[in-house]
């Protein structure tokens, strides 16, 4: 069968990506079907297309056509197939809209088959051939443009930070509270996201503990990761790595953002084959450490309504950050209720993998988020805390879609609230 240009290019990308982990994912599957119940898509809508093994099989067929002896010569015997335009378009649709790369299937697979790696590979094939969702490409390229031309936004950014600093001083009642930017030699470089909501609460916390910190001029989000495009992802991460080196900080602290944390903490050292001269951690780990070291005096009465916690897949499952959020919650919340399952077994909210940024898949992600909505409902909580921006956006949408009647907050919001509550109580008692 004659392949057109994009199919040919996609196959070249597949060949290029074939390292040992991918070969393993494409060759190993016991077809036991355990992964079905592990996937929130399948739990929400039990159909064969939602079984992770079925999804991976769609690329395995193509792989076998070239890499399996029988696949080459007697394709029908091993169900091997040529890739064509129609099949490729279906693969792309599946990889971007029917898998959030949450890795719950991998954790529940007896053989540890990494189906999200297969989906990432399809995403990489799509990106290289111009078939990836253009919004994800545009968001990634905007971030790269910021790194290449900081002058296009820096002046306005600094103006905004100066205003946020005034807001911080009013909130804390401390005229000395600061949001330092580009401070050379600071101990911590904090990397937020675009928007005040990821800057003010950590600023309250850093000022409260007297941290020697500075704010990154860049945002932590890395849409290159969702595209499966390591080159774009590296360029986006490099802006922050270079800034940290330039400022000679000892630690980079990443905002509440699952994929950004995964990219900077776990992927970046491999991408750059480098041991960085600084540590990189999630703000969740750092705040939990402040609490454990007694650097923060917090009053759980500040957050008196029942709170449940949604574990971000990237933080909990990929990064093992599931104890730290509970250290924080126990310190700042009066009535904490676990949703079940939780921790590394938590269900994805349905918004991961870049889906919250793709309006065309809104209905799909609302349906896929049904298990999460039901989990939340069962807790009876009034506040859902999460430590990932994508999760928070999705949880907010699920709240509206399923009428959950909850409020979605970050862990740092609850901590900042507990700090301000104590300050107010102290001020009124004096």
């Amino acid at each position: 069968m004659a392949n057109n240009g994009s199919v040919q290019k996609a196959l070249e990308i597949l060949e290029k990506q074939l390292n040992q982990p991918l070969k393993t994912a494409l060759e190993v599957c016991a077809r036991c079907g355990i992964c079905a119940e592990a996937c929130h898509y399948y739990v929400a809508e039990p159909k064969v297309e939602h079984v992770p093994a079925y999804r991976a099989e769609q690329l395995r067929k193509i792989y076998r056509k070239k890499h399996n002896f029988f696949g080459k010569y007697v394709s029908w015997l091993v169900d091997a197939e040529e890739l064509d335009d129609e099949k490729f378009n279906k693969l792309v649709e599946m990889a971007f809209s029917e898998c959030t790369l949450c890795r719950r299937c991998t954790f529940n697979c007896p053989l540890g088959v990494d189906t999200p790696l297969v989906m990432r590979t399809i995403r990489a094939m799509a990106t290289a051939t111009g078939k990836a969702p253009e919004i994800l490409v545009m968001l990634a390229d905007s971030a790269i443009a910021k790194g290449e031309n900081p002058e296009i936004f820096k002046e306005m950014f600094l103006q905004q930070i100066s205003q946020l600093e005034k807001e911080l001083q009013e909130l804390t009642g401390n005229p000395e509270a600061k949001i330092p930017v580009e401070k050379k030699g600071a101990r911590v470089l904090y990397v937020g996201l675009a928007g005040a909501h990821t800057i003010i609460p950590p600023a309250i916390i850093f000022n409260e503990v007297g941290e020697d910190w500075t704010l990154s001029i860049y945002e932590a989000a890395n849409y290159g990761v969702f595209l499966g495009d390591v080159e774009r992802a590296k360029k986006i991460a490099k802006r922050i790595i270079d800034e940290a080196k330039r400022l000679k900080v000892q630690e980079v602290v990443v905002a509440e953002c699952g994929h950004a944390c995964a990219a900077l903490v776990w992927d970046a050292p491999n991408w750059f084959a480098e041991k960085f001269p600084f540590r990189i951690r999630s703000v969740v780990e750092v705040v939990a450490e402040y609490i454990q070291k007694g650097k923060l005096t917090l009053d759980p009465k500040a957050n008196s309504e029942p709170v449940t916690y949604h574990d971000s897949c990237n933080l909990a499952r990929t990064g093992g950050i599931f104890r730290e959020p509970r250290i924080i919650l126990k310190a700042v919340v009066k009535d904490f209720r676990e949703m079940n399952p939780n921790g590394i077994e938590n269900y994805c909210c349905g918004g991961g993998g870049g889906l919250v940024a793709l309006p065309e898949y809104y209905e799909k992600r609302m349906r896929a988020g049904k298990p999460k909505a039901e989990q939340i409902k069962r807790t009876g909580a009034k506040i859902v805390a999460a430590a990932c921006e994508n999760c928070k956006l999705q949880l907010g949408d699920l709240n509206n879609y399923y009428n959950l009647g909850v409020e979605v907050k970050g862990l740092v919001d609850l901590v900042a609230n507990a700090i301000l509550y104590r300050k107010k109580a102290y001020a009124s008692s004096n």
Partner: protein
Amino acid sequence: MTEQVKVDLVLDLKGLLCPMPIVKLSQAIKDLPVGAVIEGIATDPGVMADVPAWAKTSGQELISIEQRDKEYRFLIKKVK
């Protein structure tokens, strides 16, 4: 700023957080003809950094961007 430029579409981005203002802007501009102008009104200060970067990447013209009290207003002209 709106007094001087004819606005074809007003985009209410108030209350939206990163990356949604940019997502909505990208979507809205697709349906407009070349030469059309969008006025965006957002409450997330992140747009002050994100909109100029988006304009540069997408090749659209950022006519102006400014803060008015707690709102951020920008004008984007579709040039391609």
